[in-house]
């Protein structure tokens, strides 16, 4: 996933980039390629920053990914929206945790613990 100027992208293109990134992370994790996983993480953080810059409604578009087929997409969407839809995000994280579909279930469990203890305060 190459770095690009996100300001010129439409909202749909930004959301698609977020989905593509999560799917690539899913594969990178499967291949134990953590460097790649982290590089994609940086690109996805840029997408989230751009959505924040465009306002609350733009960020809420990520909520549509809560029903995505891929568990990594759902996990990333829940974490990216924990600041704007805390109850829904927690509910989804709990579902992922309860599914026991690893490794995403473990990541969701860790995030939930962070939210509940106050160690992680998403904005």
């Amino acid at each position, binding site marked *: 996933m190459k770095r690009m100027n996100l300001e010129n992208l439409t909202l749909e293109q930004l959301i698609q980039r977020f989905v593509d990134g999560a799917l690539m992370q899913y594969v990178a994790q*499967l291949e134990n390629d953590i460097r790649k996983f982290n590089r994609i993480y940086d690109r996805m953080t840029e997408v989230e920053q751009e959505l924040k810059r465009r306002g609350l409604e733009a960020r809420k578009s990520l909520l549509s990914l809560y029903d995505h087929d891929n568990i990594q997409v759902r996990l990333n969407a829940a974490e990216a929206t924990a600041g704007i839809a805390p109850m829904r995000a927690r509910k989804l994280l709990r579902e992922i945790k*309860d599914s026991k579909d690893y490794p995403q279930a473990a990541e969701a469990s860790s995030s939930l613990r962070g939210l509940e203890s106050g160690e992680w305060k998403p904005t």
Partner: protein
Amino acid sequence: LDHNKADTRFTRLKWRRAFGTWEQKAARWVELIRAGYDPNQPRVPAGNRDGGRWTGGGGSGASSGTDRSNLIGSKPRDFRNPNKPLVQLAQVDGTPPPRKPKNPKLKVPLKKVGKRSRGEPPGAPPKVSKRKPNTNQERNRTAKEVARWLDRARKSPLPGQIRVFIGILEGISWFNELKPYVQSYFDEPKSLGQLNKDAQTRRPAYERHHIVEQMPARQDGFGRDLVDAPENIVSVPTYKHHEISGHYQMKRKKYGDKSLREHLRGKTWEERRNEGLKVMEDFGVLGP
């Protein structure tokens, strides 16, 4: 909302139908593989009396068992008793045929999970090529996909698909060496004492894991007496170990876009150990 529900139900129906077709085809393949089917085995050319029939000579698969000239008591198949084995028990020189190495079948225990997630279809099974992938990374990736898919499928409402898929895997010889790694992925969580005890002996498909990560701990000045103490070492399934090691290195929002490894830098031994134990619980390795 009703529209969404109907949509989901329709998707499930479509998935079930697709799976039904796939299951029928897969069952046919299992049957053929068990019967010794080899697509590369030569046939008698058209125009001959036996045109189109399989020939014994020169076939690539020893499993086809069609070249029976060196077998004692070779005779045509008894069609009144189709279960009777074609291959006889002794060869010409009287020595018993070589025994196949032990190849235990995958056992996938069904798993009960919360109502919420039960019923979610596991999707199509991963593709496993009959040809051995060239690199270890590719082989492990395939085996991990298989392990994850079976792990999802054993919680689904259609456990029958597991049997069919395992039947297919049985016909793929290169996969045999990876079966123990897939099998260990289904281990139930164990007590800390048991995991410590298991680490005293080396076992295939398991790796020794340091509860407090060894390299960062040493770099932060913790001595070998702590880092390599038996209390700090557990035995975990290899693929779980890969996931846990990855978890320590992945950037996370929770840690301010840093990794858990970076987050733990400068922390006390107890803080690191507590986090290490929680991670093992999160990954279903350590029991609550």
